[in-house]
Structure formats: structure tokens, C-alpha cells
């Protein structure tokens, strides 16, 4: 067994399985399949066609791509907003003939020609936009009609002016520069296309207007309900589309200088194929400039290469159609199954071998007893999930609850309760600052400060992002417990960066170091991660030396000590390596020792499963979450230990009847107050032999 354990340990240490799930949560993973197709296309045609990678071939191809990709970008904008623009091919032809006509026949200067051409395209786009956006006609039919009408206009113009255009040879270097010039060795049209792609990328990903476009495409009704001017957004996408298509036409005109009847015919199909193949969803809401670029490169290479291979034009179209069909099928299947796949692979357990659990019977310091039998219940059935408990100098009890309130039970009898503050998240660990303000770790939100008057203020909700992390770990997902150093710095734990608040026990199935400890410095307002890769760091408690704190790692079943100041600064020492259960909050006891809550007891079957990551991975895939093997968090206890790690006493409720589920405890004036994250009460236990005057505030703030 030892050999297989060793192999498993190394296997899971070397291979970072969890990255698969994290990559799949990223939006850019949608580009993976198109990118793979791109590589295949380059590989196949690169080997079939001699001199494919030659300078002339690349230059020629890229110049055509510059024009084509503008069309694809145009179509992408419309598709992202949930529409479709079939008229791009015709507008392209219109742009071509208008530019040539104005330049050659009317003799306008080049800047005016470009401006007029773009205006012409925008006008067609505006017609589309008014019809589709404001009159809410079907995009497909409307743009199909525009396609035909504009094509007819182009044919009429051709009939009238084509001879004149062919007769005049425009004498303008600027004009030819558009079609044949280079910027630093790169064809001008490519520079234009890349610039516009970057602009579009920034627009869609970084600008308010871009988010409006995506929102409209994702769900038109929701976008309307949140106040986005849906009609205007849709209309403007068609205007942009028309403008871009006309720009492509102008570039084309400059490059070839001729107007033919077949200009831009079938271009809309090629552009559509490129857009969809790149991964832009036909349904809207999902698309990017990168996808458009990848798709257009693929289609450009395919079409051109087939021509160069001597394939007839009919077969060429056939292939294009087949590729479009395939792309649409992949689009639909991917969209439908991605989340299913993600939910199956996201939980990625790793090897975790816990030290042998000490006994909970006989002479063990953890031996079972009934000392919690006499716990009295405060607020029974009137409080939902008090994770942490704290008392102020007037003996009032503060607890968080599941619905995001900080509830205050009023001394002396704790019968009356009131909502002290509403936070909106899931209040977890709490501590009083020197000035009497309550600092709270709020799951799903971050570190917050609640003033004596109940005003809620954010201290921090983000930390420095790690460079090599795939998921964005700068945001705080599950701030758990905190304590305050004598100089005011707040150290708090974030239990896991991979799961949200309500899924916290699932992190146990992974038992990876997903958590960290973060320091917020109120003097500078900065937030820094101080310790990483901790296994569900939970309770934090300052030691009495003012230079270090104790912290519990729940799924690792250990308590460690970290020095943030002094000669041992930066070191971590394990204080208790082998707890019989899962440690939660730690707090000071009146005699200089520490209270520790064990939220659950280790079960031998799960301890074994922790050494078999493959077993847990298959379990997460095969059976429903409600049926997963969980850490046994139905029974807990309270442990008191000192700085050397010696366990002094253990308080149990053997049947788990009187006080089920313990996640925290707080000593105050000779009593112990007990909280539980899934409990419906606050427990209160009279302590024998403990200082009846001692309070946490005096311990923290009075001597200094």
C-alpha cells in the first residue's frame, strides 16, 4: 500500500489536475477549438502547397485577409448583439464602386472619397438598423432584402459608370498606398484590420457600450429590463457593420482598381462561415474580435489555398458550405455541453494523507464527555446559522446569520434581539478593533467594518493577484476569520479560492491548498497575501507576544503558528499536527491558553479516501452531490490548548443533541458562548475555574 500511496502522492503533486476545470471556467477557452482548427488548416495546406510560407504568398494572402477580416468584424458586431447582417457582401461591392466612381469620375480628393464611401456604407447600415432595431423586423429577412436591393443598385451603377471608371487612371499616391502600401513591412489593409480588431476587442471587453452590446445579444429582455436602450444598441451595430463593409470595399477598390459584376458575391457566406467557425455564437451574446480574426484567417487560407490547388469554384463553395454546417453544429453542441462537462471536471481532488487520528476515548485528552450537556440555548430557533459569536463590553452578543445580518442579542437575559447591521453577504469571523468597531469577514464580499452605530463600510475586497493563477484570485470569495495585531493590521483567512460560500464542504473533497491568509493594513490601506496554499485556513487568533498568530487549517486537521514580526518573522511552525477532527475558529482563553472549535470529527472512511484522489474524483463525477462522502460535521467539540500544542481539555456533547454543530466559541466573563454555522441557537456554558471578569477586549486592547 505504501508504494501505491507514494505513486499517488507524486502523481498528484506533479500534475495540476485542477487547472482543467479552471481553464474551462474561462471565457477564452471558447477559442480553443477554432484555434486548433486554424493550426490544422495551416499544417495541411502548408504541406500541400509549395512555397506556402514564402514572402510573396504571405503578403498576398494577408492583404486579402485585411479586407476580408473587416467584413468578418462587421458581421461579428452584429452577431454579438444577437442579429445577423447578410448585406455585408453587397455593401462591400457598393463601397467598391462608390469609391472608384467618386475618385475617377467625380474626381474627388482621396480623404473625401473615403469619408463619402464610409458614409454610404453607414447609410445602408442605418436602413438595416432602423428596420431591425426600431421596427423590429426579422434581421435575416431584412438584411437579405437589403442584400438584393444594394446589389441591384451596384448593378445599375456598374452599368452606368463602369466604362468611365475603367477609362480613368487615378493619379494619387495616397490612393494606391491604401491598396498596395506597407507600414513597416506590413500591408496597409492588415494594419487597418488589426487596429480595428484591437479597438473592437477593447470595445467589447472594456467599455460600457460594448457590454451593452453583449448584454443585448445575451438576453434582449433582460437588457431591456436593466435599462439598456436595446433598439438603439441594435441599430448602431448595423451602422458600424455597414461602415466597416464599405471600408473593406474601399480598400479592395484601391488594390484592384476595377469594378466587376462579381465583386463581393458570396462574400456574406464566407464571412458568416468565418465568424461562426471562430466561435461567435449565432444566438448572440458570445463573441469577440479574437474569434473573428481566427475564423477569418481559417476561411481565407482555405479559400485561397483551394484556388491555388486548382479546385473548381463549385467545389470551393461546397466545401465552404460544409465547413459552415460543421461550425454551426460544433457551436450548438459546445454551448450546450460545456457546463455539463465543467461541472463534472471542476472538483479535482488531490492526495492528502493525514496523520493518525488520536483516540477520543480512554485516557486521551480528547476523550468523550458530556460537558456540553448543560449548555443553555440563546435565541433557539430565532437565529439561522451564527458562525461566530462575539460580545461587547456591555455583554451584548453579536452573531452573523445566513441572510446577511449581524444580529445583536441584548444583555442581560438575551431574550430581545435586533438587527445591528445588514451586510448582504454571509458574515463569518468577527473581532472588535481598538476603537470599538466590529470588523467582520463576510463570505462572498470581503473584509468589512461595522461602526458602533451600525454603519457598514468596506475595508477590502481584493488582494494582489498571483501571476501563475488561472482563476482570478484577486477577489475575495470566502473571507473566513480574522484577528487584529496590536498595530492595527488585520490578518484574515480566505478558506478557498475555488469555491463559493455555500459549497465550502466540497473543498474537503479536494483537500488541496486552495486557501490563504491575507493582511489588510489600515495605515496604508493595502491588502497583501501573506501565506498561500493553505488547506482551508479557518480560525485565526493573535498570540500574546504580539508578533505571531495561530491559525487552523480545517481539512489538514492541524493548528500552526505564523510570525509576522520579530526575530522569527515569516516562519510557520506547526503547533498541533494531528487533531481528531476539523478545526474551525480559535480564540483566546482567560488563562492565556486558547479555545479551538472542532467543527467535525474525522471518519476513517474519508481519511482513507483522502489518500485515493482518483476515487474521490470518480465519486464527484458519478454520484449526486447530496450523496457525496462528506467530512462528518454533524458532531463537534471544543478543545482548549496552549501555545506548546498541549491539549488541556475537551468539551463534548456526546449525543450531539443539546448543541449540534460547533464552529466557534468565545469566552466572556466566565462563560463560553458557542456558535455553529448551520445551527439554530447560540450556546452559553458556565465555565468553572475561569476568570469571571475576563473579556476579549481587555485582553486585546487594555494593556497597551
Amino acid at each position, binding site marked *: *500500500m505504501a508504494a501505491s500511496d507514494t505513486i499517488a502522492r507524486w502523481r498528484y503533486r506533479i500534475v495540476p489536475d485542477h487547472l482543467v476545470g479552471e481553464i474551462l471556467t474561462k471565457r477564452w477557452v471558447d477559442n480553443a477549438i477554432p484555434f486548433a482548427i486554424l493550426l490544422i488548416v495551416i499544417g495541411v495546406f502548408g504541406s500541400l502547397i509549395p512555397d506556402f510560407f514564402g514572402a510573396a504568398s504571405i503578403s498576398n494572402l494577408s492583404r486579402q485577409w485585411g479586407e476580408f477580416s473587416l467584413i468578418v468584424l462587421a458581421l461579428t458586431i452584429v452577431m454579438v448583439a444577437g442579429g445577423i447582417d447578410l448585406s455585408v457582401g453587397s455593401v462591400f461591392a457598393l463601397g467598391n464602386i462608390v469609391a472608384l466612381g467618386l475618385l475617377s469620375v467625380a474626381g474627388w480628393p482621396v480623404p473625401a472619397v473615403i469619408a463619402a464611401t464610409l458614409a454610404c456604407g453607414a447609410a445602408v447600415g442605418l436602413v438595416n438598423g432602423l428596420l431591425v432595431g426600431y421596427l423590429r423586423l426579422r434581421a435575416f429577412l431584412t438584411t437579405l432584402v437589403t442584400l438584393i436591393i444594394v446589389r441591384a443598385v451596384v448593378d445599375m451603377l456598374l452599368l452606368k459608370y463602369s466604362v468611365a471608371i475603367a477609362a480613368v487612371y487615378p493619379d494619387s499616391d495616397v490612393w494606391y498606398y491604401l491598396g498596395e502600401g506597407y507600414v513597416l513591412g506590413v500591408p496597409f489593409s492588415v494594419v487597418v484590420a488589426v487596429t480595428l480588431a484591437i479597438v473592437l476587442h477593447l470595445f467589447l471587453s472594456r467599455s460600457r457600450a460594448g457590454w451593452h452590446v453583449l448584454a443585448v445579444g445575451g438576453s434582449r429582455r433582460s437588457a431591456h429590463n436593466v435599462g439598456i436602450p436595446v433598439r438603439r444598441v441594435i441599430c448602431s451595430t448595423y451602422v458600424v457593420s455597414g461602415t466597416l463593409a464599405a471600408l473593406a470595399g474601399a480598400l479592395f477598390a484601391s488594390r484592384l482598381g476595377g469594378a466587376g459584376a462579381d465583386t463581393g458575391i458570396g462574400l456574406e457566406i464566407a464571412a458568416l462561415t468565418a465568424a461562426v467557425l471562430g466561435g461567435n455564437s449565432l444566438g448572440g451574446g458570445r463573441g469577440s474580435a479574437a474569434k473573428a480574426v481566427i475564423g477569418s484567417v481559417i476561411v481565407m487560407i482555405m479559400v485561397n489555398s483551394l484556388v491555388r490547388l486548382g479546385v473548381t469554384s463549385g467545389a470551393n463553395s461546397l466545401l465552404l458550405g460544409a465547413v459552415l454546417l460543421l461550425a454551426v453544429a460544433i457551436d450548438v453542441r459546445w454551448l450546450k455541453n460545456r457546463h455539463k462537462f465543467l461541472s463534472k471536471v471542476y472538483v479535482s481532488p488531490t492526495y492528502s494523507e493525514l496523520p493518525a487520528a488520536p483516540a477520543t476515548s480512554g485516557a486521551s485528552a480528547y476523550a468523550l464527555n458530556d460537558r456540553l450537556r448543560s449548555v443553555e440555548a440563546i435565541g433557539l*430557533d430565532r437565529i*439561522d*446559522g451564527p458562525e461566530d459569536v462575539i460580545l461587547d463590553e456591555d455583554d451584548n452578543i453579536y452573531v452573523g446569520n445566513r441572510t446577511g445580518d449581524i444580529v445583536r442579542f441584548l444583555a442581560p437575559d438575551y431574550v430581545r434581539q435586533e438587527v445591528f447591521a445588514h451586510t448582504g453577504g454571509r458574515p463569518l469571523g468577527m473581532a472588535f478593533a481598538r476603537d470599538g468597531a466590529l470588523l467582520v469577514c463576510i463570505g462572498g464580499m470581503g473584509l468589512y467594518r461595522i461602526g458602533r452605530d451600525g454603519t457598514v463600510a468596506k475595508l477590502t475586497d481584493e488582494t494582489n493577484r498571483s501571476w501563475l493563477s488561472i482563476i482570478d484570485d484577486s477577489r475575495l470569495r470566502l473571507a473566513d476569520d480574522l484577528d487584529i495585531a496590536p498595530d492595527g493590521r488585520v490578518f484574515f483567512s480566505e478558506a478557498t479560492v475555488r469555491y463559493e460560500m455555500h459549497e465550502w*464542504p466540497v473543498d474537503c473533497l479536494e483537500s488541496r491548498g486552495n486557501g490563504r491568509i491575507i493582511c489588510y493594513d489600515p495605515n496604508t490601506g493595502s491588502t497583501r497575501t501573506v501565506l498561500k496554499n493553505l488547506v482551508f485556513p479557518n480560525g485565526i487568533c493573535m498570540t500574546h507576544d504580539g508578533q505571531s498568530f495561530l491559525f487552523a487549517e480545517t481539512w489538514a486537521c492541524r493548528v500552526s503558528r505564523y510570525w509576522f514580526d520579530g526575530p522569527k518573522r515569516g516562519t510557520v511552525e506547526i503547533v498541533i499536527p494531528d487533531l481528531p477532527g476539523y478545526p474551525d475558529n480559535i480564540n483566546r482563553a482567560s488563562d492565556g491558553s486558547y479555545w479551538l472549535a472542532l467543527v*467535525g*470529527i474525522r*471518519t*476513517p*472512511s*474519508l481519511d*482513507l*479516501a483522502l489518500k*485515493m484522489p482518483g*476515487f474521490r474524483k*470518480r*465519486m464527484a*463525477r*458519478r*454520484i*449526486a*452531490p*447530496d*450523496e*457525496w*462522502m*462528506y*467530512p*462528518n*460535521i*454533524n*458532531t463537534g467539540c471544543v478543545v482548549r490548548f496552549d501555545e506548546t500544542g498541549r491539549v488541556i481539555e475537551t468539551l463534548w456533547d456526546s449525543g*450531539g443533541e443539546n448543541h*449540534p*454543530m460547533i464552529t466557534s466559541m468565545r469566552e466572556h466573563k466566565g462563560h463560553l458562548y458557542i456558535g455553529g454555522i*448551520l*445551527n*439554530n*441557537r447560540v450556546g452559553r456554558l458556565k465555565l468553572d475555574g475561569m476568570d469571571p471578569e475576563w473579556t476579549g477586549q481587555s485582553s486585546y486592547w487594555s494593556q497597551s
Partner: protein
Amino acid sequence: MIGLLSRTFDNLLGRGEAAVTVPPLDGALRPNRLLDTARSRMPLPDVDCLAFHDSVLVASAGSDIHAALPDGRWMLRRTYGSPVVCIASVGPDGLAVALDSGYVVIEGGPFDGRRYRVDPAIRCITAIAATSDALYLANGSATNDAGEWQRDLLERNASGSVWRIDLGSGAGTRIASGLAWPCGIAPEGNGLVVSEAWRHRLVRLDAGGTVDRVMLADLPGYPGRLSPAADGWWLSLFAPRSQLVEFVLREPVYRRRMMAEVAQPFWVAPKLRSGRSYYEPLQGGGVKHLGLLKPWAPTMSFGLCARLDRAFQPRVSLQSRADGATHGVTSVIEHDGEIIVAARGDGVVARIPLSDVKGDAA
């Protein structure tokens, strides 16, 4: 070859044989609390098997046979040298008592005092049924004894057998073998219906002992003893199937290590009573919220018995859910308008008037 391929494929995707689905409690087996709400509950620790002997209710518990007193208490009637694994009425005044040692002893009636030991291979008697001239024995496993049923399940054995003992001559013959923990017998016509626990089904053996029909398949629990009802049969299902156990059954390495490294009470395995120790495995839905265990929580033990019609189809069920107190039903008998249920997991015998169990729930 194709079989191997499809098995590999199933294993990869969790389909077919590798699927861990468990049928829902539905139809006649829709959840109820009838076992917990029984008005008459007679505690008897480790009660296992029930029978009527001379019109008196008797129950086996450990090495003892107890008799019920009219006031609802139990009186010790007899203690044997080894644990009693099963009892059954032989005629109106006889009682067959099967012992862990493999002996079957007859108390009372025309065969009073006879001791039978058919074959040294019989070490795991799980059920007895008597006809006028013969006893039928179910031998759960060839390698494990009756108390080791969890191990037998986790080893995925199918080594059980069914035997016939001629009451007069004492001659024993093996009728069938290769059964997956047979633990209930109902003589029906010229054959026998046997509950095959690890295959979650009832099968009919013909006179020659071959399985000629599957009477009831894909049960949501492990079927145990069968006893005659006024119009059909009673079936006790002693433990629930669960997705987690089904999954563990398909994980040979984990199973092997668990049986070697983990103490038996804390295995991931069905139980007669679960949730007594914090060392037992807990499942996601079993986490207590606001101090309550949900009745629908996934559980390793429950209470369930069902009345089957003459065609062995379930009609009515009596249940105790995850948060109930009548788990591990090992024996049910119907007598004089009353249903008597032995819940071994909770050590209690519940008596429910037949009139409380209304009609056909199906």
C-alpha cells in the same frame, strides 16, 4: 471482446453495469412514517426474527428466544449455546431454531427435540421456511457467517445456497447454489421464491432448483425475509441501497483497503442502524441543518417492509425514514389482523393493526 470493450466504456462513462443509480421510493414504496407512528412498540435489544409458537409471539435476540407477554414486555424463554440466527414456525405448535453453529433444533410439535445438521458447509443460515414435511434453509454465503453480511456484500460474493431438509429422515439436499446472499424463502406452489439480497430481487426456483423467473427486480433496498400474509406475502428490506454504496461496490481498490484498514462499524456499507457514531461516514445531504437531520437525507439504514400480492408485486409499505427510529427491519409477520415488525437496528418490535395500513397504495 465486444463485452470487454463495452465494459471498459461503461466504466469510463458510468453507464450500464457501472451505473450507480438507485430506484426511487415510489408507487407502493412511497415514503411514509407508519413504522415510527406505531402505537405499540416493544423494545427488545438486538431482536432479529419473529415467529408464532403455540399462538404466542416469540422473538430471537442474540442467543435467546423471548416470548411476548400480554402487557407488552418480553419474557426470556430459552437460551442457546450459540447465537440464534433464525427461527420459523413448524406447524401450529412447532418452532425451528437455527443456530450460528449450523444446527437446526426443533422445539415442540411432532418433531420436538430433533436436531439437524445437513452439511458442514452450512455456516450462514439466514432464513427458514417450513412445509408439512420439510424445512427449507437459505444459506447466505459459503464463506461468511450470518453476522458478516456487510463483508459478504462488499466482497461481491454470490456463493449462497438453498437447502431442503426432510423432517422425517433428516436427509438434506442442496436445491440451488450461486445465489447472492439468499435470505428469505417463501414456498409457492411447487417451487420456492427466494430473496436474493445482493442482486436486489426476488427469484423463483422451480422444483429442480433452477431460477425460472425473476418475480421482483431492482428493489431500492436489500430484500430479506419473506412471510405469508392473509393475501400475499410480507417482505422485509433490511437496509437501503444508496448511490454511495453502489459506487463503492464498483471501486475494488477502495473496498479492499477499507475492509483491511477501517474498523467494520465505520465502513461505507449499508447498516441496520447508522448515525450512532461520529466515526461513521457522512454524506452531503446528511448534514444537520438547524439541528435537524432531514428525513430525505441519504442514509445507510432505514426501516422498510412491504406487503406483496400473490404475484409478488408490492402493494403497501411501512417505513421509517432517515430520521426515524425503527431501522433495520429483519422480520415481519402478520397474525390475527396485526402486523408485527422486528426492527433489529433499533432493537424494537412494532405492532401495527392491519386496519391502519389502508388499502393498496399503488
